[in-house]
C-alpha cells in the first residue's frame, strides 16, 4: 500500500474504533454524565433496593418495602438546604396536588429521604414537612436510622453526596420512581413535575 492509502486506511480504522469507544462509553451517545448513565442503566435494568428502616416526620418507623403494590416517588433532601432541595420539594408539592386525590396514599405516594443523618431529627423533618403541607399518609419526610443503612440506600439509588464546604451538601437532584414491585424503575428531572404527575395518572 502506498503511504497515502495507508494513512487514509489507518485514519479510518482509528475513526471507527474511536467512535466505537465513544459509543460504548456514552451508551450510544445518550449519557455523557454519570447521572445520565445512572438513568439509562435503571431503564435497562430496574434495581432492587435494600430493606432499611426509615423514620418519618411523625416518628413512625417504616420500610420502602411497605409501599409495594403502589407507585412511590422518592427524592433526597436535607432540611437545612436552601437551594435545590427546595426546588425538589416544590416539585413534589406540585405532583401531590396534581395527581387525583383518591389515588394518593393508596396507588401513589411520595417520600423525601434526608441525607443529613446528623442534623435531621424528627422535629426538623416535621418542621420541613409543614412548609409544604406534607402529610405522612401520602408524603413522608424521612430519615434513615443508621449511617450504614444510609450508605447502602444511597449506593443502591446511585446517589453521590459531597459536602459543599459550607456545612451543606450537593447531591443528585432527580425524581426516582419505584414500581409496584418495589424496584427503582425510572429517574426523571425535577423541572417537569406536571408531566411526571400526568405520567403517573396515566400509569395507574
Amino acid at each position, binding site marked *: 500500500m502506498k503511504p*497515502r492509502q*495507508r*494513512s*487514509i486506511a489507518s*485514519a479510518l480504522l482509528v475513526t471507527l474504533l474511536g467512535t466505537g469507544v465513544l459509543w460504548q*462509553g456514552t451508551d450510544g451517545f445518550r449519557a*455523557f454524565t454519570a447521572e445520565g448513565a445512572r438513568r439509562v442503566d435503571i431503564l435497562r435494568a430496574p434495581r432492587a433496593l435494600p430493606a432499611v428502616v426509615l423514620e418519618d416526620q411523625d416518628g413512625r418507623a417504616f420500610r420502602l418495602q411497605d409501599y409495594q403494590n403502589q407507585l412511590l416517588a422518592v427524592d433526597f433532601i436535607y432540611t437545612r438546604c436552601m437551594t435545590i432541595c427546595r426546588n425538589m420539594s416544590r416539585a413534589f408539592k406540585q405532583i401531590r396536588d396534581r395527581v387525583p386525590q383518591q389515588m394518593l396514599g393508596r396507588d401513589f405516594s411520595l417520600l423525601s429521604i434526608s441525607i443529613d443523618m446528623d442534623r435531621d431529627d424528627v422535629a426538623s423533618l416535621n418542621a420541613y414537612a409543614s412548609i409544604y403541607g406534607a402529610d405522612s399518609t401520602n408524603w413522608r419526610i424521612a430519615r434513615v436510622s443508621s449511617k450504614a443503612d444510609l450508605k447502602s440506600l444511597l449506593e443502591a439509588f446511585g446517589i453521590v453526596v459531597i459536602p459543599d464546604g459550607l456545612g451543606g451538601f450537593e447531591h*443528585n437532584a432527580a425524581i426516582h420512581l419505584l414500581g409496584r414491585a418495589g424496584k427503582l424503575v425510572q429517574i426523571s428531572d425535577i423541572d417537569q413535575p406536571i408531566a411526571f404527575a400526568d405520567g403517573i395518572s396515566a400509569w395507574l
Partner: protein
Amino acid sequence: MALRISSARYALLGLGALYLLLAMPATRTWLEATMSTHMLVQIPLLAAIGFIAGRLLPQRCQESLHTAAGGALPYVVLAVFTSSYWMLPRAMDAALSSMLIEMVKFISLPTLVGLPLALAWKRLSSIGRGFVWTNFISMLAVIGWLYIAAPVRVCNNYLVEQQSDTGWLMVILAVLLFACWLGTLFVGGDPALHRQAGDARA
C-alpha cells in the same frame, strides 16, 4: 553528540520522575480534589509527558512509526478521539471511582494523546497545525461555556461552583491560547513574511 544523548537521557529521567510523582496517591488526591486542577493540570500534564517523550524518541523510531501509519493523519485522529473521551464528565467521574479507569487514564493520555501528537506535529503542514489548534481552542471554549452555564453538576464528584470556576478558566485559557496562536501567525514565525514587511517599510 554525546552531550545530546545524555541530555535526552536526563530529560527522559525527568519525565519518568514527573510521571511517577503524578501517579502517587497523595498527588492524585491533591490534583483530583478540584475539578480545575484535575482537568487543567493533571490531564494536560499527562498528555504533555507523552508529547515530550515522543520528541525524545530516537529519530529512527519516529520514522518507522510514521511509515507504519502512513503519515500524520491517523495520529491526529487518534489524539482527537482519545482527548474527546477524557473530556466526557462521565469518564472523569469513572476515573475517580474506579482504579482501573484511573489506570487507563494514566496510560492513555500520554500514549494515545501526547505521543501521537508529537509524532504527527513535525510532519503537519501549517494548515494541519492550524486545524489542530483551532479545533482544540474551540472545544475548550465551548466546553468551558457549557460548564459555566450548566445549572446542575455534570460530575458527581465536583460541586457546581467548582464547575463554573473550571468553565471560566477554560474560556480564559481558550482566549489566551487563541491570542498566542494569532501572535505566532502574525508576529513571530514566518521569515518570508518578515522580509516582505521589511521590504514594504523600505
